[in-house]
């Protein structure tokens, strides 16, 4: 394996999750350094770092923090998205299990940067006794050591961290649904504007930065090496740092790999994952979680950064890469995805609620061998009609695969239908 290790530097050490291990490798020194800087200076470094949100949208983190800083209403909140529900994604769980302190250090740096004193880590409910338990243990250790709580490291900063958990709902990963859930309601995404960063749109209506676990885990590195150097770790302009790629599918060694942001899918497969399994030939790549448009094997040389993939009409999303082999029929794969989206649609918007349900039924019909050519065309058309019409991006996330699977693997559909 090649490339610098930032987020995974400690992962192979014994008790990598303990405070002792983390401190032995320089942990919490970045926090001490950050607390001697001005909050705006930190945000400026984050802007320079070209760190893009690792939750899915790839929004520039420094810009988001500047939005929050510009608001004059206090208190402000930093809310962490540890809901990790996008099918294929399993890297935030690994951070919480293996290096919770790196994440916590980043979180406290974030609190200082946006002047927040109370922060919540919203974990998916299933993590309660595993990743979240580990995180809670780390919070206690950090509090005892003076990294969380009142007057942190004598700087005058007060910051409290609470881990809370959801109860099983993919939609609560969407940031405004997450805020609703955090406030004790069902996870209905909110209409925007106001955006969470602005007064009226965030947690308890206060300005709020919602950030992914991995996004925040990068903060110690940014403070330590400076934004410019961090940015150069990425292989593509405006896409800074390394990224945790969560790889699954028929590869020899599935797992979470840290690679330079923008590595090609081919290099990721061959150099990190040991290639495809014996007897498997690469057929399709899901580049950024279930919601992303699919790629063919011939497109494996594409770079995996946010901007390249956007230009190619798909997305880098959550960094979940699924390599599928020749045994997979892509119509069946799409039917599987659509069950998921139909089940997880919150039901607020008609195009999403009805669209995902219709797509799911049509695809089931096709997969059952009862479909006609027209049904395949209908799937494509329904998907097109769902786009850009809804409160949140779940509908677009269902439409994107639906269209692309048909466009790129039409033969798999045609093989199942009559006429």
């Amino acid at each position, binding site marked *: 394996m090649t490339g610098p290790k930032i987020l995974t530097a400690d992962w192979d050490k014994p008790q990598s999750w303990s405070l002792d291990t983390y401190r032995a490798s320089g942990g919490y020194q970045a926090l001490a350094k950050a607390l001697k800087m001005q909050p705006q200076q930190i945000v400026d470094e984050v802007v320079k770092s070209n760190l893009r949100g690792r939750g899915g949208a790839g929004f520039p983190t420094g810009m988001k923090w500047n939005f929050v800083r510009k608001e004059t209403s206090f208190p402000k909140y930093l809310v962490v998205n540890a809901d990790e529900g996008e099918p294929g994604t399993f890297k935030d769980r690994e951070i919480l299990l293996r290096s919770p302190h790196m994440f916590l250090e980043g979180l406290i740096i974030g609190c200082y940067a946006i002047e927040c004193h109370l922060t919540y880590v919203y974990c998916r409910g*299933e993590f309660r006794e595993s990743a979240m338990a580990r995180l809670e243990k780390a919070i206690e250790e950090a509090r005892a050591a003076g990294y969380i709580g009142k007057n942190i490291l004598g700087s005058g900063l007060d910051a409290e961290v609470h881990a809370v*958990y959801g109860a099983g709902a993919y939609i609560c990963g969407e940031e405004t649904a997450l805020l609703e859930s955090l406030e*004790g*309601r069902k996870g209905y995404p909110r*209409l925007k504007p106001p955006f969470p960063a602005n007064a009226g749109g965030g947690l308890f209506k206060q300005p709020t930065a919602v950030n992914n676990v991995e996004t925040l885990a990068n903060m110690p590195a940014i403070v330590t090496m400076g934004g410019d150097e961090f940015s150069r770790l990425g292989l593509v302009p405006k896409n800074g740092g390394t990224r945790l790629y969560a790889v699954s599918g028929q590869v020899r060694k599935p797992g979470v790999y840290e690679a330079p942001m923008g590595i090609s899918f081919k290099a990721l497969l061959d150099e990190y994952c040991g290639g495809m399994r014996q007897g498997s030939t690469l057929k399709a790549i899901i580049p950024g979680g279930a919601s992303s448009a699919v790629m063919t094997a011939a497109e494996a040389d594409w770079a995996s950064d946010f901007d390249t993939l956007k230009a190619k009409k798909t997305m880098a999303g959550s960094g979940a890469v699924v390599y599928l082999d020749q045994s997979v029929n892509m119509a069946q794969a799409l039917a599987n995805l659509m069950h998921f989206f139909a089940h997880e649609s919150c*039901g607020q918007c008609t195009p999403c609620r009805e669209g995902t349900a219709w797509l799911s039924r049509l695809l089931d019909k096709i997969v059952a061998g009862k479909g006609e050519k027209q049904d395949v065309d209908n799937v494509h058309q329904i998907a097109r009609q769902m786009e850009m019409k809804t409160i949140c991006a779940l509908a677009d996330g269902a439409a994107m695969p639906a269209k692309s699977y048909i466009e790129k693997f039409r033969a798999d559909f045609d093989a199942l239908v009559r006429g």
Partner: protein
Amino acid sequence: MISLGTQVGPVESPFTPEQQQRFDAGLERAIAKYPSERRKAALLAALHLAQDELGWVSEPAMAYVAFRLDVPPVRVREVATFYTMYRLRPVGRHHIGVCNSISCWAMGAEQVLRQCSEMLGIRPGETSGDGHFSLEEVACLAACGGAPAVLVNNYTFYENVTAESLKALIRDLREQPGKAMAKGPLPRLPDPHAHIESQSTPQATGTLGQPAVTTRAEAGSTEPKR
């Protein structure tokens, strides 16, 4: 039925004294995480805590949670029915969730589900006659690198499941007492479209930046409205 009540009067606790103690301690911790005027935000945690004790979220449990947090019972019901980890009917003492999302599906989840179903003698969505096992299909567990993955009793992950490891898991679980869960026939509905259907009845979608308002009771919530 508590479906539309707006009155929050004293409600009898569904817990034994021992359960009550644990519930109270847990609830206190959950509430303490929020600013004091925001205690209602602990609703999800309160339902989890009730389920920890009872094995599922019963009607009396919902009513009691509403009373304790001073939220309209309808809102408790809304939350309890929205999230899939809350069991709305009694389930077996061991609940097995088989991930059916894309990575697990591609690595043989259907086979795992079939084997589970055969070994336990129940279909997804059912509970065995002796109340020992329930089986359910669940969405991606964030364990895709260990596909196919299985979740036992909501919180315990089993990964890289094979025919042999599944057999061993079920054998082990048979010998363990598991969670004290009430005996009963059916957990939540297995049909993935069922909840879509039930949601296609008209629903208000709320105004700008506000959560959906479904009933007067909710609109008249005691919480300060935006």
